[in-house]
């Protein structure tokens, strides 16, 4: 008799807690949206909406950001580096993963052993020697120095190998009987079949490259070549933004929102890819 009412109460309480938590979690984002739209004199007086209301909000901070700073260039650099690096990783990883999953060849066990042993090592071990290598190749202050080393992902190839193992052999053999080349099979049969994994990995890799700081900070020196994380971290160190942080918050917002929006559109694909590896393994 009491049960339905109790259920209704717990339901309301659950939702109230969830809504309250959502507001708490998203509060910093809401705060920087307001901060990026406020005049300097309003920054301290009000937490979110300034006293003057909507009419005292403005877009000047965004204008300053795009004109007084090479911010737009940083954004282009970030887009270029993250996408080329991701495309390369996916191509190298699916090709290699295909070879390891579906063929038998002489040095396969050796290749797998060596590569998977390195998967356990933290990437920071490579920083000093990779820096030397970049200097030797003349890739300091060049996008090559970020994109090319970044394209090698043993983890990515491992994921692709695992999902290609699940592609039925009959499918590949049928194509071979029809006279398809091995290359054609990779591109036209394997790739479409493992599309969910390719999608999830593409997003993961893009996000990682987009947010990457340490290595680009070591490689890039010219301010015009910066990516967004380095550019913004350097802006934080400049005293002109100590008093008017609205410009800096506008920049952070522009660096963060496009990626969040992209993931919002593709969230189903991403989240399933993210958890599938962990739960199976």
């Amino acid at each position: 008799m009491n049960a339905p009412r109790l259920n209704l109460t717990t339901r309301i309480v659950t939702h109230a807690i969830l809504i309250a938590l959502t507001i708490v979690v998203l509060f910093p984002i809401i705060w920087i949206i307001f901060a990026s739209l406020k005049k300097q004199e309003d920054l301290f007086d009000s937490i979110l909406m300034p006293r003057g209301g909507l009419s005292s909000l403005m877009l000047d901070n965004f204008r300053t950001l795009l004109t007084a700073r090479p911010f737009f260039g940083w954004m282009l650099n970030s887009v270029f580096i993250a996408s080329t690096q991701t495309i390369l990783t996916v191509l190298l990883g699916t090709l290699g993963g295909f070879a390891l999953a579906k063929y038998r060849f002489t040095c396969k066990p050796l290749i797998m052993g060596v590569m998977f042993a390195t998967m356990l090592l933290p990437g920071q071990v490579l920083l000093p020697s990779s820096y030397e290598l970049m200097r030797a190749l003349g890739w300091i202050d060049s996008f090559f120095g970020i994109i090319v080393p970044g394209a090698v992902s043993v983890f990515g190839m491992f994921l692709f190998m695992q999902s290609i193992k699940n592609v039925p052999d009959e499918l590949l053999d049928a194509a071979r009987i029809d006279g398809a080349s091995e290359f054609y099979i990779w591109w036209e049969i394997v790739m479409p079949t493992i599309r969910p994994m390719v999608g999830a990995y593409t997003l993961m890799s893009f996000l990682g490259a987009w947010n990457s700081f340490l290595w680009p900070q070591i490689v890039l020196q010219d301010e015009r070549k910066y990516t967004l994380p380095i550019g913004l971290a350097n802006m934080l160190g400049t005293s002109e933004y100590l008093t008017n942080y609205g410009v800096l918050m506008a920049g952070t917002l522009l660096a963060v929102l496009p990626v969040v929006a992209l993931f919002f559109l593709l969230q189903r694909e991403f989240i399933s890819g993210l958890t599938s590896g962990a739960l199976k393994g």
Partner: protein
Amino acid sequence: MITPGRKLAPYIFVSPFIVMFAVFMAWPLARSLWLAFHRPLPDGGYRFAPLDNLNFLIHDPLFWFALLNTFFFGLFYLALQVPLSLGLALLLNRKDVKAKSFFRFAFFSTHLVGSVFVAVIANIMLGNRAGFANQIAHFVTNEQIAFLSKPNLVMPAIVLCALWLGVGYGMIYMLAALQSVDEQLHDAAAVDGASPTQRFRHVTLPGIWPVLRFLTLIGFVGALQLFELPYILYQGNGPGLRAITIVGYLYAWGFEINILSYAATIGWVLAIIIAIVSAIYLRLSRSDR
């Protein structure tokens, strides 16, 4: 039907990866190991000195300080992240929750914000004289407080930022694990009169235990590699060096002091620590069964 093409194909497919791997992973790894056993000379060359770096590291109080600091951060962070993620997942896993995918994305979305951007936001919110923390402080005490210069607030501030990045992420895994727990088992236990707490302890917890363990390991190994968050939030090592981490210390030696051999040594010690932590974890998870 093995055609010549089919025989050759795997070599062609795997070779671009192998070449790249050899140049940009295997060689730097070997070179970094080499560096760890050498000392730089004033003329830019190196001298073989197998134990010098390690000896220096063992007697380097700052390294130990950075190590302890990083360990402490990892423990502090996990002690909060795991229960918070699990709690959130349990709340969201209730059958009567509406707009589940909205909440799920809202909690998860903070993970998409890179730690550099989080550090920039936190630096302004906590440290700026007109930032959020001072808006509140001014309202309450009528004073401005330099939150980022207080040594005792360094760890809580970093953990808070890391939680903002990590709780929703953990929740995604916990949710997936909860959904894989056998529902019939739950119902059977309920029919047998098990209370919700008993059902959680004896049905849910064993069911999600592997994921819980996995997340703890990933979380701790990730915490050992902490760098951007404290380094940018505190614009360096923070008050009383409290924001220093192992990777931050490696970065300082390699790219501020420019002694790559010692930076490589710190990197390998970090690798060994991670290997030990993982081995202990594997040991524990084996004895669980």
